[in-house]
């Protein structure tokens, strides 16, 4: 294996070299989703807004749900939305990664192209959506009178999720080229992971005997940290730091695996 594949500085500089191309690919990916729709790119804003409205209606008015151990704080639907934004960065990236390379055989076989940036495209798209979600969250917090400066930490706090997402995406994109079933399995896995991560509930609501499972889930640490920042509670930095370290490791390993298997892509597609 080539040593550049595991040197984080080399990886980053290689990726930065292609940043313009990557930007174009992400732009295309995002625009393509809304191309031809009557409201066009407005949907990028409308769909999370509608989602949040439904959350507020169902959880706020029908269930009248209360966030456990947080009786007079943020409404349940905002706590849920906050966790969901973080989770979706990972979920959206990973769900789409098995087809990130498989879906573009021409880029692999017909043109000279840095294939390793393809799995970053779903991440870029997910981040774009997260950005709009974040703006809506900020507006909703301000509107309900819960705006706090901790919100500004949000972009920093999700860094481990980006690293975990891209590492998994590199890995799954490579597998997806060889095994078509990946595009079926992975979204299912993401669904399960959503319910097993502390998105709909805090870790503190989990029975004490089971918390070890949650402590092993790096997404959980980040989601909890992001929520803590927003409601102005102390952030559990050690758990967040562990998630960051794990994220770096996953990203490097994913990249190495991708670079190792890419020579066979053109043969397999």
């Amino acid at each position, binding site marked *: 294996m080539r040593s550049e594949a595991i040197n984080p500085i080399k990886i980053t500089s290689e990726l930065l070299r292609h940043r313009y191309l990557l930007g*174009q690919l992400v732009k295309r990916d995002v625009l*393509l989703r809304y191309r031809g729709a009557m409201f066009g790119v407005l949907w990028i804003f409308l769909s999370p807004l509608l989602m949040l409205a439904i959350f507020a209606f169902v959880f706020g008015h029908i269930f009248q749900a209360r966030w456990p151990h947080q009786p007079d704080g943020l409404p349940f639907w905002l706590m849920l939305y906050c966790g969901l934004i973080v989770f979706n960065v990972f979920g959206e990236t990973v769900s789409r990664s098995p087809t990130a390379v498989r879906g573009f055989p021409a880029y692999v076989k*017909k*043109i000279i192209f840095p294939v390793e940036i393809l799995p970053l495209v779903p991440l870029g798209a997910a981040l774009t959506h997260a950005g709009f979600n974040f703006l809506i969250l900020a507006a909703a917090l301000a509107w309900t009178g819960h705006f706090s400066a901790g919100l500004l930490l949000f972009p920093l706090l999700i860094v481990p999720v980006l690293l975990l997402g891209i590492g998994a995406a590199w890995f799954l994109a490579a597998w997806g080229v060889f095994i078509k079933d990946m595009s079926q399995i992975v979204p299912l896995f993401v669904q399960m992971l959503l319910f097993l991560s502390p998105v709909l509930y805090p870790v503190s609501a989990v029975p004490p005997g089971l918390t070890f499972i949650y402590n092993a889930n790096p997404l959980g640490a980040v989601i909890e940290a992001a929520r803590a920042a927003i409601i102005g509670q102390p952030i559990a930095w050690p758990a967040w730091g562990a998630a960051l370290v794990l994220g770096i490791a996953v990203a490097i390993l994913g990249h190495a695996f991708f670079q190792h298997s890419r020579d066979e892509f053109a043969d397999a597609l």
Partner: protein
Amino acid sequence: MPSDDIAISVRNLTKTYRLFGHPGDRIKQFFTLGMRQYYRGFTALNEVSFDVRKGETVGIIGRNGSGKSTLLQLICGILKPTSGSAIVNGRVSALLELGAGFNPEFTGRENTYFQGALMGFTQAQMNERFDDIAAFADIGAFMDQSVRTYSNGMFVRLAFAVAISVDPDILVVDEALAVGDAQFQARCFSRLAAMRDSGISIVLVSHSTEQILRHCDRVGMLEHGKLMGDLGEPRQIVNQYVATLAAAPAAGAGIAGNDTVRQEPFLSRPGYNPGEFRSGNGKARFVDFRMSAPKARGGRLMLELDVIFLHTVSRPLYSLFIRTADGVTLSSTNSDDKAAQTQPALTQEAGTRATVCFDLQPNLCAGDYFFSIAVSETRYGDKEVLDRRHDAIHLVLHDPANLGGMVDMQPLIRIDSQPGEVQR
């Protein structure tokens, strides 16, 4: 290390594909770490060596499946060699497939800038080139329409214009130019010639011996993944290639050599040329033809072709080429030709037939002519040849016997003779 005037240095280049019978076998192979072998090896390219000098145009000919495309992909670095090396000295632009990176949902302008980004150009650099590209593509206001709405010809024109705009040192062309109308092909080739004169090396792969003869300085022939001899003088290698085709007329890959093909009435019609070269993926087949030669000078020629579709094909495109015995293309047309008053081609379901009638006024002098016919399909900009029968029909014209050359211009000549003497 290659010397300075070498653009491409290929040494003992070998590519063996691993063919897995079942997708799961690849995973098994991965986990056994080479302890067991779950694949069949297929050597597409075997110990090929040659050099391409700067400013030289090298042609590669060979039948389908002889390893031509694999060779080009290795030169471009898209594939990794199993052994040996292909060292490239300079920036490579690959025309393996025109418009490979195009997305039909975006406009021509968006695709142009995106294609530029693919090749490492920023928006500002593409701004400088855009006018040139637009001028060469010559598609006018369609530049701001989505590529989905383009005709075949417009698509190809834009794709080629973008591909050559990136100032490469080495251009690798894989039959990409076998599409588009003849006039556009001529423009492409004159542009290629200009690029060659400015010192760019070109590697051209083609079925068309005509293109090879006209544009290449040296030619190599691939057969079953091996380079037959060294690169040589074009005419000599082309003759050698034509001889191998004649020796095994139906041994090409894909459609040819199939038993059902041998029973087609096509093969027993008068005028059928047993030396034809057939290629294509076999989703449709020409099974029969009827030809009526012009009865008199200036008469019309009717060529009816029966096609069966084994798969569903959306918008099949029928094309016809007329060549001389020397391989010079006299004329070509296809069913996208608006001037030919073609009705729009409909989707052909699997199992249906179509009859295509070419009604022509050839205006040819006496001599031997060959018709090449093809049916193809364009899917997301990828032209797929379903069935191509190169030089499949042989036409012998006897009238008018007493004209020289090839074209009967149906001349009308008037002579006025004035009485009286010329004053000196």
